[in-house]
């Protein structure tokens, strides 16, 4: 138990801002996961590895002398095709099977991606430099890296863009229809195969954006994908499928919770605290569901 945060209340501001900025970034990854989980009923274990691959694309640009921030445009384009190709190669064979098969398949993809990235980019931890500087608030007692602000800003733009796209465009409507009822959508003339491929592509593209942002805010390594998968899985569990505002809120909420757990319980319990919260939420949901069933009986 550490009371530092109560002795120096300015730390609360720092913790809140750090938590929210990071939470928004995680929410973007989680949104991709929620989207394809909702549409295709696939839990993508390779989500985090797609993120890291997106990050390596931005890092490669940085190596050849292009500012890594351009990665937020280049990386999703490349990653869209990676996702699309993955769908055509593997996912289309497991899309209507049970959840277990798809988890196994994406787990396999995750391993292949990790090894490939290790092979191509090496096992060293790398970072791309954005040189964006720092924003100081409250007489320098609160510092916010501009790269984190940039990351949150870009995440919000992509999220809003995606919502509009899903509402307005034909493909967006087809995706939503397929999510509601794939069979009915098929009968009404929606090419669900195409919709699935596009959904997986969009998810990968979102991972690409997040990856590019992570390359300038955090660090990259071929084997650090799993924490991102787990984090986005948790956000989706808390928020439910197909509900963007809830995903954004739950992302920020988890970010905040994590930061405060760090200050109050200690860093070693930071991730443990989040898992405890997850257990509580799952138990609570189960409790609510069981009440519902009683009513139906």
């Amino acid at each position, binding site marked *: 138990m550490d009371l*530092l945060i109560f002795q*120096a209340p*300015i*730390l609360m501001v*720092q*913790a809140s801002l*750090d938590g929210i900025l*990071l939470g928004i970034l995680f929410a973007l990854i989680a949104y991709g996961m929620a989207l394809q989980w909702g549409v295709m009923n696939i839990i993508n274990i390779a989500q985090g590895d797609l993120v890291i691959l997106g990050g390596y694309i931005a890092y490669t640009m940085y190596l050849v002398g292009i500012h890594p921030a351009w990665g937020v445009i280049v990386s999703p384009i490349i990653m869209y095709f990676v996702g699309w190709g993955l769908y055509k190669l593997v996912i289309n064979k497991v899309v209507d099977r049970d959840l277990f098969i798809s988890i196994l398949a994406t787990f396999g993809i995750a391993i292949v991606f990790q*090894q490939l990235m*290790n*092979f191509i980019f*090496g*096992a*060293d*931890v*790398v*970072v791309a*430099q954005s040189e964006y500087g*720092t924003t*100081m608030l409250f007489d*320098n*007692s609160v*510092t916010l*890296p501009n*790269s*984190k602000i940039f990351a949150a800003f870009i995440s919000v733009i992509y999220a809003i863009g995606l919502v509009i796209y899903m509402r307005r465009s034909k493909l967006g409507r087809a995706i939503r229809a397929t999510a509601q009822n794939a069979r009915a959508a098929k009968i009404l003339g929606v090419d669900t195969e195409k919709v699935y491929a596009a959904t997986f592509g969009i998810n990968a593209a979102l991972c690409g954006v997040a990856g590019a942002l992570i390359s300038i805010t*955090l*660090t990259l*390594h*071929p*084997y*650090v994908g*799993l*924490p991102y998968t*787990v984090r986005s899985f948790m956000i989706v569990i808390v928020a439910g499928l197909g509900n963007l505002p809830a995903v954004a809120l739950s992302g920020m909420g988890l970010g905040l919770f994590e*930061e405060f757990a*760090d*200050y109050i319980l*200690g*860093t*070693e319990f*930071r*991730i*443990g605290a989040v898992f405890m919260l997850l257990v509580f939420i799952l138990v609570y949901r189960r409790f609510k569901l069981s009440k519902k069933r009683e009513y139906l009986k």
Partner: protein
Amino acid sequence: MNKLVKLFTIFISAITLTLASISSSFAKVEGEYIVLGSAISLTGKYSSNGVHTQNGYNMAVERINKMGGVNVGGKSYKFEIIYYDDESNPKRAAQLAERLIKQDGVHYMLGPYSSGLTKAIAPVTEKYKIPMVEANGASRSLFTKGYKYLFAVLSPANQYLEVAIDLAVEKNGGKPVRIAQAFEQDAFSQDVRLGILDAAKRTGSKIIIDDKLPKELNDMAATLAKVKATKPDVLVVSGHTKGALTAIRQISEMKVDVPMLAMTHCDAAKLSKQHGKNSEYALCASQWHKNLSYKDKFFGGGKKYDKDFKKEFGYAPPYQSAESSAALLVFKDAFERANSFDRDKVRDALKATDMQTFYGNIKFGPGGQNVAKPMILFQVRCKGDTCENKVVAPTKWASDKFYHPIPKWSERS
């Protein structure tokens, strides 16, 4: 059906027999070759350091063989190493160690990369009484288990940053300092932490922040905000390359001012290259540096090793390669002193090792750790945009003066 079972039995026994005959054909010493075995991470998350280790071994094998080999019983032998890829996986490493010993008949082992993998292999080599000289497992727990066949040429992990605390106290006019520390939760980093705790106790210093970073964590903002609020005299960070890179990135972004910053893994993280000026003044623990004045007749000194290694492999040798090369010098020396291939005689000779190599003096303590070599500290210093690691402690080898305190971010250009 019965026939089938019989056939199957015959088939299996035939295979077993073949395998048995193969395994006996590989012996500890084959013709003029002394066969050593090593499971090493050529793929997986330790693959870059695994390759550094392998290059170090290979370089020494080639050099020793070229310069007359190993003289045992009046006859000259050459080294040869059987490598297997352990995929950076401890379970696999232990299996491969069994395979090296039981199937390939290896009687002498070289260590893998990292403390974790060495920990996985050590029980196996102990069980079969196989002497193992390792160069990349620094965890203190390796040396407290009473292993009799394990010898490490490197200094144990708890010594990595102890010197830094002494240095901080010295700069503080001999008065105790306030320490903030953040360590990853793995065997190695926690051992480094134990070293700091000892040093703090010895100097009467106070630890005001003691964060343990989860392995998955790649964000230290909370720890650094605490550091900013409490203003310690020293900040100590250890979390492999990821920890080093994350720390420098966020310290520079959050403009955290500390008079002294001590870390591990700076050279493995290529800190001065990846973060440039932002990494300036960071103090780093290292097992070896090319500027040290140790000498041996195989590699000459550190500078010559550096040059030869560059020529052979195309990059400057990290300390992981240097210590791996030293492991073979130790083996050669022990074989010659034992003047026999008897495993226990070789083990006793290893135990009595007291020699100087280009990498440092080597003498094994009761637990098998090297007690003759101090850790060194270097500091990242920049001239213009190029940054370099300069040795600052111990003073005997210091090429530059230790810069203290670190200037505030507002005064840095």
